């Protein structure tokens, strides 16, 4: 059979997994790997057991405890999240009864599921992977076909090794130029979302490409692909390059002799057509911070709060307690949080530590760092980064999703202003009435020292 003259990377990944497409346009897509966490996975394993269904390929399915685990040092199964322990125990029991590998609370390789998937080589170039979590698209940075799914779809994937879905449209985001100064992949993502809206991805499979992407580290690409969830994309993907292959070398579940020839072919052909094309100049990206309750409510750290353009923005400003025209950088903060699947990899912690070194967190600011995985934590401690965080006044915690969202346990209080490296500034996301400002690790670290929103450049 002749292959199409020029195909996009997404087309290639899709075609190599598409089993059949029915007359209604719905396809059956083969799933190579399944990853689940306790919050949405436990229900699926429970109902599979009730329906007396098997996990079709248990050796290709993995469980990770991350969402509601305690992140305080010396933790156990007990968690401040009401009912949280039940979710952890249910996942553990489901994993045991179906024979799935679980990265449990006390596992040396535990961490946030998307970090674990990358570190372990569960996600690989050319593999399809599903996980009942919207940020699964993070793994597109490795050249994987990665989809966030619901619990019903998870059950389906476990029982049949397939996903039933309509092929999404394709969108190319070409990033010209390279990031400069303190601008990071997080700032690039926020700039893109601010320009085109939180629904700007329109359910498409987004490919990031161009000089700005080639110049990024693999971890930066993961941050960028992670934020595609906040762009309304079906998934994101980046053509894997030598940096990716190096990153994966030695990962426990990666092949000892990787099919590099095949992996190098995982890129869009010259002249491949995308359904939609966007261009972004990385040179023009400045450190960003959000001012509202959607990631699209975002501007430069040194910009004033803009006048609201619609009812949602007006409501957002009311919730955030901000006035249009005032500089964001004058807003005092109550807390600073570094963590989450967006920005808790080793390079994120290094960039925050570079800002923190020799400084102290401003009085009255609660500062918390939650490494994304045990592996990240070990690496950071080997480099002495834990000392930098602790000496500056940050808490140094155990890995997990932690205060990225409020599940009834730890959280921030009503009216508290939090600067955070996480991905969602929704109303109540980090606590009822809490006001979240999304930013990069460097901006969060700088703000923690200043006691107000500010860029690293504002530190003397």
């Amino acid at each position: 059979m002749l292959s199409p003259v020029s195909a996009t990377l997404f087309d290639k990944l899709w075609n190599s997994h598409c089993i059949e497409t029915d007359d209604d346009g719905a396809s059956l897509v083969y799933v190579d790997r399944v990853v689940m966490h306790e919050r949405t996975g436990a229900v699926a394993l429970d109902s599979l057991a009730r329906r007396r269904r098997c996990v079709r390929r248990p050796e290709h399915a993995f469980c990770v405890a991350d969402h509601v685990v305690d992140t305080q040092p010396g933790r156990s199964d007990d968690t401040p999240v009401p009912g949280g322990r039940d979710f952890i125990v249910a996942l553990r029991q489901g994993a045991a009864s179906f024979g799935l590998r679980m990265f449990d609370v006390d596992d040396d390789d535990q961490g946030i599921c998307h970090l674990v998937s990358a570190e372990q080589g569960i996600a690989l170039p050319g593999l399809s992977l599903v996980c009942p979590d919207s940020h699964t698209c993070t793994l597109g940075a490795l050249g994987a076909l990665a989809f966030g799914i619901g619990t019903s779809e998870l059950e389906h994937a476990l029982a049949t090794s397939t996903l039933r879905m309509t092929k999404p449209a394709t969108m190319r985001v070409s990033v010209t130029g390279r990031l400069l100064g303190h601008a990071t992949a997080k700032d690039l993502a926020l700039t893109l979302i601010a320009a085109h809206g939180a629904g700007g991805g329109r359910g498409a499979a987004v490919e990031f490409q161009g000089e700005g992407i080639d110049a990024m580290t693999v971890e930066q690409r993961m941050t960028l692909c992670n934020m595609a969830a906040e762009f309304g994309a079906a998934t994101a993907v980046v053509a894997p390059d030598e940096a990716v292959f190096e990153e994966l070398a030695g990962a426990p579940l990666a092949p000892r002799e990787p099919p590099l020839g095949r992996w190098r072919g995982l890129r869009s052909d010259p002249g491949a057509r995308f359904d939609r094309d966007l261009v972004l100049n990385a040179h023009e990206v400045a450190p960003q911070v959000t001012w509202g309750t959607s990631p699209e409510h975002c501007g430069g750290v040194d910009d004033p709060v803009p006048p609201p353009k619609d009812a949602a923005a007006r409501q957002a400003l009311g919730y955030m307690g901000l006035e249009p025209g005032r500089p964001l950088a004058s807003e005092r903060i109550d807390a600073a949080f570094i963590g989450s699947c967006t920005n808790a990899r080793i390079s994120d912690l290094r960039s925050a530590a570079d800002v923190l070194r020799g400084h102290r967190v401003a009085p009255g600011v609660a500062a918390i760092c939650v490494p994304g995985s045990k592996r990240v934590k070990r690496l950071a401690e080997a480099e002495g980064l834990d000392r930098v965080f602790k000496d500056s006044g940050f808490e140094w915690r155990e890995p997990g999703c932690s205060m990225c969202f409020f599940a009834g346990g730890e959280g921030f209080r009503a009216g508290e202003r939090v600067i955070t490296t996480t991905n969602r500034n929704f109303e109540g996301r980090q606590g009822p009435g809490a006001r979240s400002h999304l930013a990069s690790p460097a901006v969060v670290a700088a703000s923690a020292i200043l006691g107000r929103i500010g860029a690293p450049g504002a530190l003397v």
Partner: protein
Amino acid sequence: MKPLELHTGVAAPLLRANVDTDAIIPSREMRRVSRSGLADGLFAHWRYLDAERRLPNPDFILNHPERAGASILLGGPNFGCGSSREFAVWALAEFGVRVIVAPDFNPIFQKNCVANGLLPAQVPQSGIQALAAWSDEDPQRNRLTVDLRASVMEGGGSPVPFAISEGQRVRLLRGLDDITLTDESGAKIDAFERQRLAEQPWVRLDQ
């Protein structure tokens, strides 16, 4: 799963953009490893003045007496964005919502709706505003009718067509369960997998 062909119900407009699944069901309302017991926590941040004490917020649309029994939500762009939590759809379904009308949906949320027999109907914003205006006149009397067989909604003026993928439309009409449907393709899946693992043995992990 309950098939859906024709549905008539009270509508409730919630037209702001980017209504997220954290708003639909806050994480702290997901207290049990279960698909049920969630309706009470639906829109908890907005529906209650004090969520812990369940003190109703009289200003929230679903608390307006004239919206009692609402089963059709009229939403804004990018409805259901954020977390993939299917708890959001389970909460809506348990509350009695059968249809959500919006200019566009988050892709995971949209699939979660269909998996649970809820219709995510895509209608341009102007059409939604017209439906909302008519409903607002007298919500209990001016009920909307959704006809999935013809993919149109009726409400006052001329019928408003809505978009949904054909595959999803058929599944909702028949109330099909995906796993049962896919079982019919079992032999094809086996054959595909045999070939994939033979050609690319590195894909397979040891048992």
